[in-house]
């Protein structure tokens, strides 16, 4: 379901692809590199995020997503470690469910929320691949709420179309809530259900005193997103360090 490739591109300092639930994003990170004078910050690294849609050139929609991601990454990256430099993140959307939702031209008013988790996730993986010092990592997920109030994780295009509200939540590796983008009509009770579910998907454990009986009922085996990412990084590191292994094990 979730597919991660680290460092697929050769020229960028770090890169990653993240594919999940019909959304696929390639991210590249260059940095720390020289920054233009007008963007230079005296005490921290400037972060530049550029999103390139699958078809067409970026517009106001992309600017909004860029500013969300930039605000988030400024908190995640240890920006004070590289003052007066630039960390440049380029995100290329390869596939999205918008294509099936809106055949032809994508209207500007179409919701830009569903692609956000893939963008966040790809940028974090690319930052890891570029070895940029981070204070934490993050995991993000998309959840839709059905008409009957049911919570549907990883919704399909049809689910999104029929949803009364859609939510993107991102959690840091410490379990803090980093990003929320919720839209549609919903009550706070619904939102709290969504929050608990998202936390379970991303971070695994529940909050200590959350009273979530209905969640304990669905005991489906969900590999938490954090572990999937960790595994991907672990495998990549193992593959790069295979020369260090003893000759016996390498021979097999």
């Amino acid at each position, binding site marked *: 379901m979730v597919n991660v490739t680290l460092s697929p591109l050769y*020229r960028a300092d770090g*890169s990653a692809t993240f594919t999940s639930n019909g959304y696929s994003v390639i991210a590249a990170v260059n940095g720390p590199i020289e920054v233009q004078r007008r963007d230079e910050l005296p005490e921290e690294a400037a972060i530049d995020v550029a999103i390139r849609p699958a078809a067409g050139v970026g517009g106001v929609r992309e600017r909004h997503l860029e500013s969300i991601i930039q605000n988030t990454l400024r908190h995640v990256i240890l920006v004070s470690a590289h003052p007066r430099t630039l960390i440049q993140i380029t995100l290329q959307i390869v596939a999205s469910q918008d294509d099936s939702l809106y*055949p032809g031209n994508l209207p500007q008013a179409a919701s830009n929320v569903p692609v956000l988790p893939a963008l966040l996730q790809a940028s974090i993986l690319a930052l890891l691949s570029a070895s940029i010092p981070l204070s934490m990592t993050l995991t993000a997920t998309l959840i839709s709420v059905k008409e009957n109030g049911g919570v549907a994780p990883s919704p399909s295009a049809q689910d999104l179309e029929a949803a009364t509200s859609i939510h993107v939540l991102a959690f840091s590796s410490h379990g803090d809530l980093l990003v929320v983008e919720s839209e549609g009509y919903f009550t706070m009770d619904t939102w709290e259900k969504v929050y608990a579910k998202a936390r379970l998907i991303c971070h695994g454990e529940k909050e200590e005193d959350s009273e979530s009986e209905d969640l304990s009922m669905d005991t489906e085996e969900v590999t938490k997103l954090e572990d999937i990412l960790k595994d991907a990084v672990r495998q990549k590191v193992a593959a790069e360090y295979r020369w260090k292994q003893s000759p016996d094990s390498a021979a097999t």
Partner: protein
Amino acid sequence: MPREAEPSINERAFVLQALEENIRLDGRALDAFRDIDISFGDDYGVADVQLGKTRVLTRISASIVAPYPDRKFDGVFVIITELSPLASPAFEVGRQSDLETHLSRILETTLRRSQAISTESLCLVAGQKVWSLRADIHILSHCGNLVTAASLATLAALRQYRIPDTSIKGGELTVYTPLERDPIPLALLHHPLCITLNYFENGEKMIVDATLQEQQCSEGEVVVAANPQGEVCLVQKGGGGEVDALVLLRAVDMAVGKVRELGKLVDRALEKDSKMRDKGGISAELSAENER
């Protein structure tokens, strides 16, 4: 902003000396391509081409627009190339580089001016509604020979793309979703591809599919676009060292052979893809296409 690093004097000398002895640094023959991998996305019209370490992704999309007032019967076909920092840190966001202009001009001449895709076939209601087809070419990794990689990806994507079926009843245009009617392939008249040849020693030596380093060391390049039938669509030698006129003839001859090679590769990739999509072999029965 960092600039693309030029090879050092030693590197340059090394590459040139090796070429003098007919050796390329990656061990290829002078007229051999790097490994080519053509893959398609889940949606129609997405082709991802890897040419060694160079990687290009093309996506075709279509929408209905009003035609230009002076061309009432012609659809619109646009090619968009944008080089981003994904491909190399030397590229800036939102600033058009010379390479980008060069690339999009060559592709446009190859595909549109050669009538590979006839814009008339994109017309729906004359003067009112036409298809606007766009090819977004995303350069993901720039390690030499972008022209061939981009033309390969674009042609493969165009050949694989399926445009929604339409019908006109009483002046009312209906566009069918893929569920209602199977989308139909584009009307391509021929399948041109671009080959870049880099020359050394005053055109005495020519190599196919140069890497970035070879490109930087070369005296100049010749771009030839042709179709597998051997018809030449474009020959371009923009600047570089002067060469004998006969060298160009040799270049064209060499390129046509290479185009055939690549054309077969695309055929094979498309065949494999259609087999994969046609699960259970029902598409032949469902096809609305007539035998002509």
